[in-house]
């Protein structure tokens, strides 16, 4: 799909009456047309491929749906699916766990990622190697990374089990208890995702001009003060984006709990996405499954909107 080639050349400066490149109104119009042409292919594709499925799903969530030989049949429109969710203990539990999971993993990853980025920034020769190393967990297929951790946490021959047993003397069943399973899940996620957060933050870090650091040093600021007064303010746009998208991913986490715990033990580590999967494809309960997906999207969406409003300027990257 090389749509850019098809839409170039951009409006030429001299050949058209408008947008001749002379005068402020002309430039604005040219810029707008250019922007339109530049952005249309991407936006169109997103529209075509994602809007219909999303709308379809939302419609189904407001219906009692059955599957017939002719496919999905909407028996009647109802808000009963949402009612069922709001009365379902399992849904509240999944929501609570997903929130907890998001807050914990994102916070830890940001802190560790920030530290890692700071270290990486100051590395000299070894930086290239470190970057390469950090990219490896990220490049592992998520399912495989989850299997690796499942092997590590196994109750009979997992190395983590043996390590803990060596320290405490008690053989833990890591994936068998709700609390340890949740922690195990988070550790696996943090291991895989922190490198990427570190890299995003590193890219933002290196944009801070040398002079600002030198000025801070001349002022006699400590490292701590330098960090908060010089680094963070300039890093805020990057930081905000990192937080935003990490939150989005963490809220929708599926692959990892799917392989590692299947939402277990019981429903202790059942995230919203896992519950949605269970209801849609295990129970083949289409209406409520779509309702779970829609409510998840609404919750995250509203959260992001509020977040953006609070950090409006930073998110836009206006300096």
């Amino acid at each position: 799909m090389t749509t850019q080639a098809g839409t170039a050349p951009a409006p030429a400066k001299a050949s058209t009456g408008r947008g001749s490149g002379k005068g402020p109104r002309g430039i604005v119009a040219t810029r707008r047309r250019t922007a339109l042409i530049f952005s249309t292919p991407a936006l169109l594709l997103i529209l075509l491929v994602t809007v219909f499925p999303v709308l379809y799903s939302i419609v189904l969530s407001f219906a009692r749906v059955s599957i017939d030989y002719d496919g999905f049949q909407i028996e009647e429109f109802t808000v009963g699916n949402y009612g069922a969710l709001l009365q379902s203990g399992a849904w509240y539990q999944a929501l609570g766990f997903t929130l907890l999971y998001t807050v914990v993993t994102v916070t830890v990853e940001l802190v560790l990622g920030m530290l890692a980025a700071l270290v990486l920034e100051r590395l000299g020769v070894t930086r290239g190697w470190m970057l390469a190393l950090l990219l490896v967990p990220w490049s592992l297929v998520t399912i495989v990374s989850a299997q690796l951790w499942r092997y590590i946490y196994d109750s009979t021959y997992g190395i983590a089990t043996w390590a803990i047993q060596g320290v405490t003397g008690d053989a833990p069943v890591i994936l068998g208890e709700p609390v340890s399973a949740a922690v195990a899940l988070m550790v696996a996620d943090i291991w895989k995702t922190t490198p990427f957060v570190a890299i995003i933050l590193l890219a933002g870090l290196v944009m801070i001009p040398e002079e600002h650091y030198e000025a801070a040093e001349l002022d006699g600021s400590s490292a701590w003060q330098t960090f908060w007064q010089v680094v963070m303010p300039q890093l805020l746009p990057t930081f905000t984006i990192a937080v935003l998208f990490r939150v989005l991913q963490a809220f929708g986490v599926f692959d990892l709990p799917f392989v590692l715990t299947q939402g277990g033990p019981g429903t202790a580590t059942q995230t919203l996405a896992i519950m949605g999967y269970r209801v849609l494809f295990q129970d083949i309960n289409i209406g409520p499954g779509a309702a779970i997906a829609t409510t998840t999207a609404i919750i995250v969406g509203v959260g992001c909107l509020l977040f953006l409003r609070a950090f409006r300027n930073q998110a836009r990257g206006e300096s």
Partner: protein
Amino acid sequence: MARTRIRRGWRRWINVVNVGGVVIALVTALPLYWLVVSSFKTNAEIAASPPTVLPQEWSFDNYVTAFVSNELAVYMVNSVVVAVATTVIVLGLALFAGYALTGGKLRGSTAIMTVLLMLSVFPAIAVLTPIYLIERQLGLLNSHPGLILPYVAFNLPFAIWIMRNYLAGIPTTIEEASEIDGASPLRTMFSVILPMSKPGLFTVGVFTFTASWSEFLLALTINSETSFRTIPVGIALFSTEFSVPFGAIFAGSVSATVPIVVLVLIFKRSIVSGLTSGAVKG
């Protein structure tokens, strides 16, 4: 440029940065070590308790299983084709779209950014069936475009956000200078904007590639035929009803990851310079 201080004496080696670097390297590498080492163990040794740090008997059985009894090579080709195509298309589209959405060139760009965010938020499991429906109509099942199209659409919102964020940091004076020089927008894009957007391109590229490389549910449903299967699905098929063959799975994933690692090592220097090129800003 890295801010390196000149340290004297023992601080040259033992200091916060170096120690931190070692810790990071260890924490990252240990599970990876376990992955690689286990792939060379026999099935009996993988299940040994207590676990052995080094294989008592180095064995290639798992690799044979992965490649011979399962068609890992085919899966790798499919994954590469899909991931590379997705990444290239996303990079191209996001670069232009991200640029278009900076600096208030378009009315309603904030609204567009918000809608993009909303769309990327919708859980993938719920759109699985509608997407399958559409692709069935269009005859895209069991093909490469059948996966590339949804992957591009799913990754674009994040990509556009990232590119826009980086491009917004480019001073408008440079853009205007190029305009005044009479360069067409395309020219501006390629000679001025593109070189300065490398950190963003790198971030988006890595993210999109790994997301497409790892995607499971859609690949499972749409490309169910062996000849079009991708690695995550292929590796999931190693398992039998009651057992998970860790050895074969690890061998398969080591084989799938090694080419990426090799590429990264080869292009190490350009990755670093691309990532840090934003530092030239004054």
